[in-house]
Each structure stands twice: as structure tokens, then as C-alpha cells.
């Protein structure tokens, strides 16, 4: 189908659906279609899907969503509030019935907990749980309690009874910063805290909210959860490396690198590989999806990628300004190369020494042989 056909199809679809719940809610059809198109882009679908998404959104009874915060910094909540697609913050509040969210909900205390428990009881197996923050397991979970209950027990109750759980941010997905060595509180991600739960991981520190909306829309449109990689991340958002989509890649291939912050290469947008960029080992759609209304992303702004969508990145991707991690067992000052070069030199020296000794002994041996 060419572009014109797409447009026609969209227009036809649009006419079919006269007044919808959207309009009742005061969201203009134009805004709504714009949103659906943006979503189909985020999901890496052809534009023809926009009407399909629109239909899916229209038909559903707002699915219920509860948002739990555990060992978090609320960064993902804030990210959600910055969603960039048209009126997304508004639409999220409308597309879904957000029954529980500590940071934005009006109720507090018992009234808030009641809202949560009501959903778990009445919508068992139907609602979507979103979890932000890791769950501490050490010492019976005392390091994070909400309403006097431990995060672990809450997660088991709420995620265990959910249709699916979306773990937003690297903490909820893999334990994140609380789980960084030495993991003082025994923090883990949802999948490890609630064995058996259906979990979609949307790591990132914080996640890109477009990916969350896209996941929900994917589910509403296709009626199933998106395909994921071995780490439970949807392929539509985490299917390629940053390095393979990076706008600075031509400079990587050419061999043009930033050597110092603020040098000519830095100003001209050369590759940040030598400043410790972890784009080559990070799977995320940042270069394409970008942040805050597609304004920018870390490498675009001049700082290397730190690999925030990878499990354990706080340990494996640090030091952030060195390309390779430190060698375990050696201090920061010993990089792999110093150790390696040291080893090679030591070997050479040892054998040089060995050679000298054996040369000295040569005559003696030969003499011995002669005697034979």
C-alpha cells in the first residue's frame, strides 16, 4: 500500500467511528488519531495500523491498572508525566483506569490501600500491574513497607493475581541500583520476587514512557503481550543495540573519537567510544525514540551511554567513563591492559632469565655428553 492509500484508509476509518468515548471525554478526534499514529510508530508498525489501534482503544472498557512503588526514586512516574506523544499524560489517565498510584492519587492511608485491595479482589486476573522499584527480600523484606506490609508480600498479592505485570525501570526489572554490589537489602526485580508471574520488563533508568504506552497499546491492539528477548524486554523497543542506530556511528567507523570533553571532536559530534560510551553493549531504542517529545538523548547531547537498560549495569557498565570494567580483584587503578601488558613483559623477562641460565649451562652439558 502506498502512502495515499494509507491516508484514505485512515480517513474512512475515522468517518466510521462517529462519536466515541474519546470525544465524550473531550479529546478531539484529531488529537486522538495523532496519538494513535505516534503509537504505531513507537511500536514499529506501518501507519496503516493507526486506525486499528484507534478501534482497539475505543472498544475496550478502560482496563484497570495499578501502579506500585517499592524501592524506587519515582523517576518512572516522573517519566510518565513527561510522556511526549499528544496528550499522553491525559490519555493514559483516560485510556486506563489507574486505580492506585501513590504519587498522583488523591486518596491516602487506609482509603488508598482499600482502593488497591478492591481492585485485586474484584478484577482478579484481569488488571494490569505496573511495578516501579525493586523489592528487597533480605531480612523478611523489612527494607520496604507500604501500609505496614512488606513490598514482597504486596507484590506477591498484587502481581500474582494480575493478568500481567509490567516492570518499569531497571530496578523493577532486574533490581537496579538497590541491587548494585553489595546489594545491602537483597533487592531483586519483580520476576525474581514473584515467581510464576507474567512479567514484561521495560528497563531504562528511568524507562522511556513511550515504550510503556506502546506496550499497553500493543496489548490492546493485538490482544496479546509483545514478543520479548531472553531478558523479558519487548523486541519492538529493545531489539537493537544503541550502537547500531546511533547517529554518531559514522564517526565510529571512520575512526574519529572524542578524546577530551569539549575538544573539537566533541563539538563536532564525533563518537564517544573512548569516553566510555556503552552503546555497543546496550539494547534500547533511545537513538530513535529519544526523550521528551523526541528532543534528545544522552549520546545526542554529548555524554556517553551508560547502558541503563541492561541488567546489573550499575556493576557491569561502571566505571562509566572507561570503556571496559575494572578487573575483579584489582583496584580501580589497574585496568585490564596494565595487567595484561605486565603479564606479557613478566613472561618475556622470565624467559630471558631462563635463557641466560641455560646458555651458561650449555657448556657443562656438552662436556657431559662428550664424556659419555
Amino acid at each position, binding site marked *: 500500500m502506498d502512502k495515499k492509500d494509507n491516508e484514505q484508509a485512515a480517513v474512512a476509518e475515522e468517518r466510521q467511528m462517529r462519536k466515541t468515548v474519546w470525544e465524550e471525554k473531550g479529546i478531539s478526534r484529531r488529537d486522538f488519531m495523532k496519538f494513535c499514529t505516534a503509537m504505531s510508530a513507537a511500536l514499529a508498525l506501518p501507519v496503516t495500523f493507526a486506525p486499528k489501534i484507534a478501534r482497539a482503544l475505543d472498544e475496550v472498557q478502560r482496563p484497570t491498572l495499578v501502579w506500585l512503588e517499592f524501592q524506587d526514586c519515582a523517576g518512572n512516574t516522573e*517519566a510518565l508525566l513527561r510522556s511526549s506523544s499528544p496528550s499522553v499524560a491525559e490519555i493514559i489517565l483516560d485510556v486506563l483506569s489507574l*486505580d492506585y498510584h501513590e504519587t498522583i492519587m488523591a486518596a491516602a492511608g487506609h482509603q488508598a490501600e482499600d482502593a488497591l485491595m478492591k481492585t485485586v479482589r474484584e478484577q482478579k486476573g484481569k488488571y494490569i500491574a505496573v511495578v516501579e522499584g525493586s523489592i528487597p527480600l533480605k531480612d523478611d523484606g523489612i527494607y520496604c513497607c507500604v501500609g505496614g506490609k512488606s513490598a514482597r508480600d504486596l507484590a506477591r498479592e498484587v502481581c500474582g493475581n494480575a493478568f500481567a505485570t509490567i516492570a518499569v525501570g531497571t530496578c523493577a526489572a532486574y533490581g537496579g541500583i*538497590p541491587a548494585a554490589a553489595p546489594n545491602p537489602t537483597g533487592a531483586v526485580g519483580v520476576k525474581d520476587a514473584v515467581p510464576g508471574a507474567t512479567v514484561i520488563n521495560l528497563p531504562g533508568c528511568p524507562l522511556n514512557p513511550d515504550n510503556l504506552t506502546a506496550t499497553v497499546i500493543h496489548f490492546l491492539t493485538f490482544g496479546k503481550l509483545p514478543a520479548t528477548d531472553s531478558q523479558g524486554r519487548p523486541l519492538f523497543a529493545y531489539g537493537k543495540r544503541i550502537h547500531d542506530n546511533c547517529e554518531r556511528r559514522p564517526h565510529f567507523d571512520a575512526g574519529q573519537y572524542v578524546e577530551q570533553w569539549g575538544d573539537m571532536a566533541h563539538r563536532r559530534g564525533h563518537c564517544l567510544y573512548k569516553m566510555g560510551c556503552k552503546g555497543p553493549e546496550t539494547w534500547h531504542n533511545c537513538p530513535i525514540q529519544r526523550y521528551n517529545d523526541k528532543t534528545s*538523548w544522552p549520546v545526542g547531547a*554529548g555524554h556517553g551511554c551508560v547502558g541503563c537498560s541492561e541488567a546489573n549495569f550499575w556493576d557491569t557498565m561502571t566505571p562509566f567513563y572507561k570503556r571496559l570494567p575494572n578487573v575483579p580483584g584489582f583496584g580501580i587503578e589497574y585496568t585490564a591492559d596494565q595487567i595484561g601488558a605486565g603479564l606479557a613483559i613478566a613472561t618475556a623477562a622470565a624467559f630471558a632469565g631462563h635463557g641466560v641460565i641455560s646458555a651458561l649451562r650449555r657448556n657443562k652439558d656438552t662436556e657431559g655428553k662428550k664424556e659419555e
Partner: protein
Amino acid sequence: MAKIVIDPVTRIEGHLRIEAEVSGSSVADAWSSSTMFRGIERILQGRDPRDAWYFTQRLCGVCTTVHSIASIRSVENALGIRIPPNAELIRNLIMGIQNVQDHVIHFYHLHALDWVDITSALKADPARTAELAASLSDWPLNSPTYFKGVQAKLSAFVSRGRLGPFANAYWGHPAYKLPPEANLMATAHYLEALEWQKDVIRIHAILGSKNPHPQTFLVGGMAIAVDPDSQTALNANKLEEIRLLLGKAREFVEKVYIPDLLAVASFYKEWAGIGGGVGNYLCYGEFPADNSGKPEVLWIPRGIILNRDLSRLHPVEQDKITEYVDHSWYEGKPGTALHPWDGETDYKYTGPKPPYEYLNTDEKYSWVKAPRYADLPMEVGPLARCLVAYASGHKEVKPVVDLVLSKLQVGPEALFSTLGRTAARGIETLVIAQKLPQWLDALVANIKGGDLSIHNNEKWDPDTWPAEAKGFGWHEAPRGSLGHWIRIKDQKIANYQAVVPSTWLASPRDAKGQRGPYEAALQGTPLADPKRPLEILRTVHSFDPCLACAVHLLDPTGNETVKVV
């Protein structure tokens, strides 16, 4: 006496629990506790000090820049690094817009629902709402049609019976005083602010790659290159975009936020006599005019006010800051407070096993420590900054404070209250929103003069560092005075400690039993209906709690283990 518990306190960052004893129709005593702990300071030990900002940034996702700023400043202070003027200005822009955006979100999305009854907005007359709004400001969206649209949207939402985040609130509570029209106006602006904030914060994306958690901070400067002739650096195009967004920020603050604040405040004037708290105010000062690192160049001045005495401004001495753990879940010598550089605490939970009903508030009851300045609890935040600036006769702050006081027809003593705190936040937002374009002008002037430097490379390489160094980094975050203290040994972090605004504010009692600011402010709070303690939320929210930051820990004995898997 009846004890009531609010857990979770919602519309804040993090996990806060308030236990309050009620006598008659007011709060007799209160305990504030944080119920979440992550141990980030412990995690920092043994790591590269240049990485620290990225870790500490995750102390909080709401005030998302502040811990990175304090952290890089502490390392710069330890190593004696001076950053280039461009970097200083870029940081000012980032911090300034953070303040403005954060305060507006706080007012509309976290605090407003304590004063505004959304359900009552349905009864409002859109035409009269428009009249009301027009009488307050010349904001373009003040038409009856606009308010009618908002109301229709709201009623569609309510009529579907699923209130989502607005369910189960204290709607219809007798302490709500606004007429329906004011409620409708505030609700409309609640939605408007939601759109506005994500727009203006794009300044962070331009200068810092993204928000929350911008990623261009560096020890020694910034990673956003400046070059008018490059497509990838900060060029005229991007600077102009920032200017437009700053204009947008200022317009909203002047035409929507401040008028709303004054309108709402005028209905709740009795709150100028409630929720005063400890009466001591601390401000580290912020927005350096140059890179000398001296306190004199700070635009918002540094100082302390004791016992509500605005006639005397005391200097801030770094070594008088200490922390108690007598009522916090850490091990430590009872009755001794330690300076952040020397802290030797070890976390140990001794509270009840979950699920629990009440905490044992006579013993240890929180993950928050109790910081004290010269053994006194201190209130920090917009009110503290405003008071210090006011007392010092600040040429931009003082006139705005006077104007607000005269509009509300109250004297300066009204500032020491829940309402004062909420008003000071607005005053500060306005002053900063008006100041921001000047920093942008200065940046443009520098670039025009040919200065493209954004980073001081001298001490970037750890081999140039001394074997041991210690430093501290201070920053006035939206929520108040924030300090990071660092010790560096052999190019690694030996010790890290953050004393953050919410630690000052949510602090539990100290060894002498002195209450923390929340606890003190809650005493005497009237309660119309103890089952629905809306009034407690008002006072607690007026501090803008941010609990994730408040709880962290340090443990210098821990072995360093960096795992590579």
C-alpha cells in the same frame, strides 16, 4: 488518646508514614517515619568518584537534577576544580528550570487536591468561572467555553463511575472551603499544568539529554558541547528554543500559578496560623554568579534564621552539621551526633515485623536520621530561602514577598506557617522564572565572546589526584538545603554521605527528644474528622516531602566488591 496512622502518605515521592496522637479535635503529637531503605551510600563505596553523581541522582526521580549537582560539587570541592563559566551558567539554567517546574507540579498535582475539591467543580458555572479567572489575570484560556469543555470532560469521567486516581479521596470534607467556581478553575489548571510542565522541562532535554535524570553532568563541567557552528552542539537554534521555553515557563507562573495561589490562599487564611514548626531556618544559598566558589557570589544568599527572628541572619558553618540516630534504625552510640565525614553508622532494623499496626515510637521508628545544626532542628526549603533572602533585604525577593503579604493582608509573621510555606514556594518560583532569561543572556554573551569551553580537564584523570581528599557539595534543591560529603582515597570513594532536605524535614526525634520539622509542625493541627485527616496532609504536603532521598546509609567498614558478570 487515639492514635491515627497515615501510611502511605500519597502524592509525595517515596514512602512516608505519619502516626499522630489526637486529643479532642486536634493533633497532640506526631511521629514521622520513612519505611523504605535502599543503601545507596553503601553501594557507592569503592567506586570511581566521577561516577557518583549518576548513582546519587537516583536518590530521587522527582528532584532529578539536585543530587547530581551536589555530588559533582562535592568531588570538585575535594579536588579543587573550578568549572568554566559556561558550565556554571548551564548548571544555573538546569537548576533554575528544575525549581520552577518542580514547584508548579507540587502545587497543582501534589498539593492542590488538599485544598481543591474536584467533585465540587461539577457544580460550577463556567461563565462565572471565566469571570473569576479573568479578574485574576489575562491568561488567554479564560473563556467560558474553555471552562465548559473542562467541566464536560470531568463529568464524562466521573459519570463512568471509575474514578481512577481520584477515587476514595476525602471529597466533600468540611475542611474544603473553595466555591465551586474556584474549584473548577483550579481543576482546569491542574490539567493545564500537566501539559505545561512536560513542555518547559524540555530545557533539560536540550541541555541534559533527557528528563527525568538528565545525563550531561561531569565532574569539572558539563558534557553538552557548545559551538555555534556545529549541528550537534549547543547552537543558536537550541539557545532560541530554550529562550522560548523560558518565556512559556514565566508566562504560566505569572498568569496562572501566582493568581491561583493567591486566590486559593485567600480562602484559607486561617492556615497562616497553623503548622509553623521548629522556627529555625537554614539556607545554603544558590545560583553562583561566577565560578569562584565563594559564598558571596550566590544569588540566593546563605544564612540561618533562629527562633523566627528575621532581624538577625547567622552564617552557616559546615562543621556544625551533625546527625543523630537515636530514633532511627541504625546502630550508633546513643546521644552522640556525628559529622557527615565521620559518620560510622550501621543499619539495623529493630521495628515491628511486617505486617504491623503501629510502630514503637518510643524507640527507633524510622529509616530517616535526625540531622541537626548546632544541635537544633532546622527547616529548609523555599520558605527558609525566602526568609533568609527577605532578612538580607534581597533586591528581587523582598518586593515580591511584600507584595504577596499585602495582597493577602497579613504581616511577615504569617510566613511561619503551612500557608507561608506554600506561598513562599510560589514567590520563589516567580523570582527564579524572571531571573532565568538573564542567565541565558550571559551564556549567549560568553559564546559570542568566543568562549566555547564547557569542561575543565585538568583533574579529569584520576592519576592527577592526591592520595586522599575530602570535600562537600551544597545545593539548594527545590525542597531545600542539600549537602553531599565525600572522602576520596586512592582514587576511590572511601565514604559518602548525603544530608538531604527531606532528612532535615522528616527527621525523627533526636537524643534530646527535639521533634523534627514535620512532627513539630503537625502539633496542634485541627482535625474536623480524625477518620479523614485531610488537615495533616495539608501540613505535610506543604513541605513537599520527598522520601526516597531522605533514606540512605553509609558504612565505612564494608568491603569493596565490584562484580563484573
